[in-house]
Every structure is written in C-alpha cells, then in structure tokens.
C-alpha cells in the first residue's frame, strides 16, 4: 500500500513537524499550548520509528513497539502535566509562563 513513496519523503514530513513543534515550544506563552507543541514533537518522532521499521527492518517489529510505548508515555505525561497545570491555575489564576516566577531565586 506504500506504492513508490520513498523513505525520504516520510522523513521530510517528520523533520518539518518536529521543528514546527520546537518553534511552537519556543514562541508560545501558554502552558497548554506548550504541551501541545510537545505532543507534536513526540508524534513526529513516532513517525520516524515506524517508518524506519517499515522500510529498513521489516523482519521485526521493534519500531512498532517503540512507538506504542512512546504513545503510552505521552498519554501519562499529558495526564500529569494537565493535573499540574490545573493546580497552578488554582493557585495563581493564570497559566501564562510570564506570571509563574514564584519559585525563581
């Protein structure tokens, strides 16, 4: 079902997605949107693992399982991060990173 699409075209997509995620992480000022940029980065890494598995080592499923585990880690990370964000909102009434300098020395 892949047809004649090369490995490189998949890698180009995941690279661009990764760097778009980094751009979002650097420029966003809201904790939730920064979390969404991290999800973009994790997703692009997943694409890399899966594509390497399919194109270079189709005799085993290592990349497939690595992606599965990354998805599980991303889910638990999102759950804990959102719990922390809600707690911060309760204490500071804001989730803007500019206002969160309470613990700065």
């Amino acid at each position, binding site marked *: 079902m892949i047809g004649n699409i090369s490995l490189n075209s998949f890698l180009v997509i995941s690279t661009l*997605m990764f760097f778009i995620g980094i751009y979002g992480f650097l420029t966003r000022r809201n904790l939730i949107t920064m979390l969404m940029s991290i999800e973009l980065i994790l*997703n692009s890494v997943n694409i890399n693992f*899966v594509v390497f598995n399919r194109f270079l080592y189709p005799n085993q499923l290592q990349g497939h399982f690595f992606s599965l*585990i990354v998805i599980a*880690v*991303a889910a638990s990370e999102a759950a*804990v991060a959102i719990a922390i964000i809600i707690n911060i*909102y309760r204490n500071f009434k804001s*989730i803007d990173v500019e206002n969160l300098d309470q613990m700065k020395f």
Partner: protein
Amino acid sequence: MTLSDIMFYLFAGSILTFSVLTVTSRRILRSAVYLLFVLVSTAGLYFMLNYNFLAAVQLTVYAGGIIVLIIFSILLTSHVSEKAVVAPLKQQIFSALAVAAGAVLTLMTIFKFAFTPTASPAIESNVQNVGRALVSYGRDGYALPFEVISILLLAAMVGAIVLAKKEKHLDPTEPTSNN
C-alpha cells in the same frame, strides 16, 4: 500518480498545514482542534504503512484521549474566546531562524545518508503477531517493556489524581496538616 501517492500527499499536506496552524493560531481551542487533525492524519500514514494496530492505538489514545484531556483543561483554565498572548516579534524571528537552521541541517543529513534496508524477509504486522510479541519474553518479545509501561501508567494516573485533587482548606493562611 497512483492512488497511494495521492493519499500520501493528502496526508502530508494536512499534517504540515495543521501543524503550522497548531503553533500559530491565536485561539487556544482552535489550535487543539488543529492538533487533532494532525494526529488523525498521522494515523492515516500508519494505515498506509500497513501498521493497522498502531494506527488504531493512535486514533484511540492520541485523538480520542489526549485531545479530549487537553480540550477539557482549556475549558477549565481559560475562556473559549480568549486569545493567546504571543511572544515578542524579536523572539519569534530568532526562534524561526534557529528552527529553520535546524531543519535545513537535518534535511541535508537525511538526503546525504544512504539507508540500507535489511535483506531478511518481512513479517506480517497483524494483530496476532503484535499480541504474541507483546506477551512473549524470549527473543523479540516485549513482555518487560509492556509491564514497565503498565506500572508507569498506573503511577501517572495516581499522581494526576493526587495533584489535581482539591484541598479541603481553601484558606491559604490556615496551615494544612496532611501535605
């Protein structure tokens, strides 16, 4: 131009467009929905690569779970019509420059590197093989990471509940006893 080519370019285009919209949209709820489109298109790529189980996991966990969680937290912490604060223009320009430099470097490396696929015969990635590998502990078995990830999920779940739990004493001057 075959059908799979058209599908690939469709998914690729929607992934790139919606990723850019995710990180640039001023409305937070909209950017969450754009992230949903990115994740669904990624699941489409997995379907194209014939990893059906992984695509289903991507759809249920990412698109179904994480996005719902994110949208809930957006609704809890900000107004729907609230616009996100953007970084100063100077910082945006320098971030864009750094990101572009990184992307160009990585793409040059990718195009220069000669990937050599293995000559071994491919195995089918159906649910039967995936399930067998997930619970076998011999060679090519993934029982240990499977157990570790279940412990991690349990710990994250308990931690999230404890963190987000409302304290009984809302008065900040009054000392709380149990934490």
